[in-house]
């Protein structure tokens, strides 16, 4: 028996897929909202087991929209695993659990960026020159908090080729009255000697503390390390990837050449190959600290955050599945 997926939920899934909803935080909150709407509009048989199957179906749909975004599975698992763990007796109880945990996740996500801003701002000193890359709401939050505390700071923002997300950062900081200088990505090593601190966001934090973020982040981290400039990564805990605990690799998405060159160039130069990885991996030894809403941690302690926040999720989802896979494997041979 198939249960109809509510239209609003399909729309959210579609918006995530087509990148109308973007940014790790917004994607995560949209997914939690979709689960809440799905629970409220459930129209199937009034059996808990049916409802759980239905929620699993919704979860699968949401997870399929952006296979590489880590905040998405974390949001979905935050809600669904709590439902299963609670072992609800009635349908009404099950629905209210989903609503409650969806709201809880949305609240946690919304306040996380704010908390990171406050915690991170304490590391910024009066007179600091800060370099940032791409556009990260957590990194911007740190800088803006520090500025509002009356600290006199200057910011270098990289253009961030190919898509110029540096413009968004520059605009956000300028509108707060902060002194911003735009530089090309090629100039990060040149500029580094004038910089006191680097603050970037993260797309994903792996179990060993490696940070996956916009391409160019690892260039900057390397240049910062060379110049002994402190490198901070601002990341909400839902950016930490439970899957990496069991050895999963973080997939690096390669995007269209058209982000770098235009169609005319490709037509005129058919033998030029263009490669456009969206992210790179910064090794933990190049990062001084990761600023989370729970506090500062050294990158090598990422595992602690993962266990505290997602420990039983890792147990329930990954280790069990891992065991299953092993059993299947052993049966075969």
């Amino acid at each position, binding site marked *: 028996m198939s249960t109809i997926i509510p239209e609003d939920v399909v729309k959210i899934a579609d918006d995530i897929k087509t990148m109308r909803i973007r940014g790790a935080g917004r994607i995560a909150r949209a997914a939690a909202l979709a689960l809440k709407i799905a629970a409220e509009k459930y129209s199937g048989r009034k059996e808990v087991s049916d409802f759980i199957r239905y929620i699993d179906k919704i979860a699968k749909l949401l997870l399929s929209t952006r296979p590489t975004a880590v905040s998405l599975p974390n949001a979905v698992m935050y809600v669904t695993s709590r439902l299963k763990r609670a072992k609800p007796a009635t349908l009404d109880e099950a629905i209210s659990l989903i609503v409650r945990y969806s709201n809880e996740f949305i609240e946690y996500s919304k306040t996380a960026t704010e908390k990171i801003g406050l915690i991170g701002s304490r590391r910024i000193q009066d007179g600091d020159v800060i370099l940032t890359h791409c556009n990260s709401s957590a990194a911007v939050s740190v800088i803006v908090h520090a500025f509002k505390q009356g600290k006199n700071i200057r910011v270098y923002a990289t253009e961030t080729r190919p898509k110029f997300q540096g413009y968004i950062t*520059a605009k956000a900081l*300028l509108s707060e009255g902060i002194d911003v200088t*735009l530089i*090309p990505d090629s100039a990060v090593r040149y500029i580094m000697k004038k910089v006191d601190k680097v603050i970037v966001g993260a797309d994903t934090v792996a179990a060993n503390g490696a940070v996956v973020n*916009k391409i*160019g982040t690892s260039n900057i981290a390397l240049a910062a390390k060379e110049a002994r400039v402190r490198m901070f990564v601002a990341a909400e805990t839902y950016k930490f990837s439970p899957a990496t605990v069991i050895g999963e690799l973080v997939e690096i998405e390669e995007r269209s050449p058209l982000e770098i060159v235009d169609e005319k160039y490709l037509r005129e130069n058919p033998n*030029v190959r263009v490669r456009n990885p969206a992210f*790179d991996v910064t090794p933990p030894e190049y990062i001084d600290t990761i600023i989370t809403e729970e506090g500062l941690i050294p990158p090598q302690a990422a595992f602690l955050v993962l266990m505290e926040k997602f420990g039983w999720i890792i147990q329930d989802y990954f280790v069990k599945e891992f065991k299953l896979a092993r059993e299947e494997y052993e049966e075969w041979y």
Partner: protein
Amino acid sequence: MVSPNVVSIVSKVIKDIKEWNIRSSSGVAEVALENLAEIVKLSNSVKDLVENVTYVANEIISSRPTSAMLINSFREVLLTLKHNLEENVDFKSNVSLILEKISYLLRKSREDTEKISIIGANRVVHGDIIITATYSKTIMKIFERAYAQGKKFEVYVAESRPGDDGKIIASKLSKMNIPITLIVDSAMRYFMKDATKAFLGAEAVAANGAVISKVGSSLLALAAHEARVRVFVASSTLKFSYETIFGELIKIPHAPERTIIDEETKRKIGEKLKVEIPLLDIIPPEYVDAIITEYGVIAPQAIPILMKQIYGKWPPEFPDIQTLINEVKKCLQ
């Protein structure tokens, strides 16, 4: 007073240099020398000749004070002029001696490129993946020659903002049938693990073996050093900076804002946005494995030895360019 005609020739050259229309650093010196020859031909008296040559030297050098080849070439021309004045050589012979010097320098520049490309091509081996950035005539020649020798190798080129040289390099190499991949500057470190060698051109080589090259070069060298990829710099000895022997610091020129951002975009981001675009940066000698000169491959730290070999003594006896310009002017009085 120099004629309006001379002023207009010089300002055109300066505009092309500043806006990065002449991409190769040898190219800058060659264009300057060619235009100097035209201006020498326009001169109609000894006084006119001295005024013109010193005017061109002053103006063009100050538009690109980092180009050692430019300074060294002008020094040779000014030394000839000074010698002619001191020996009371008649106007016609003076002009023809200077033109001879200019064509000698142009010939030497081309011959050096040829010699360096022969040596450089020897360093390319079957299966190499060579990473490069920023336009260099000599490096292009090395690739062309290595390919003609039947070597199978691949090139990765960074976009190299400002100026996007990488797009031009990619287009040219693909037309020579050399497998070429274009990447953004931010992706240098990402792809470095695939590279076997890094090749770079030079604007100038300082007395300690530091290499001054277009911005982004030092970032590439840093990433290569980290990944233990060998860095080769192609440079004629015409690019050795004598001024730095005597402690002169090389000043880094900046490109105009419009080379990375247009007025309209800037206005949208915010009127107060600052833009900083260094045109060049400095690669410390410890990141350079070898400099390929027309005399052969040498360690960057061995430059004083090569200087002594060429000029018979170290430090070589060369007058400072500014002093020389003043001395030439004095000869007239």
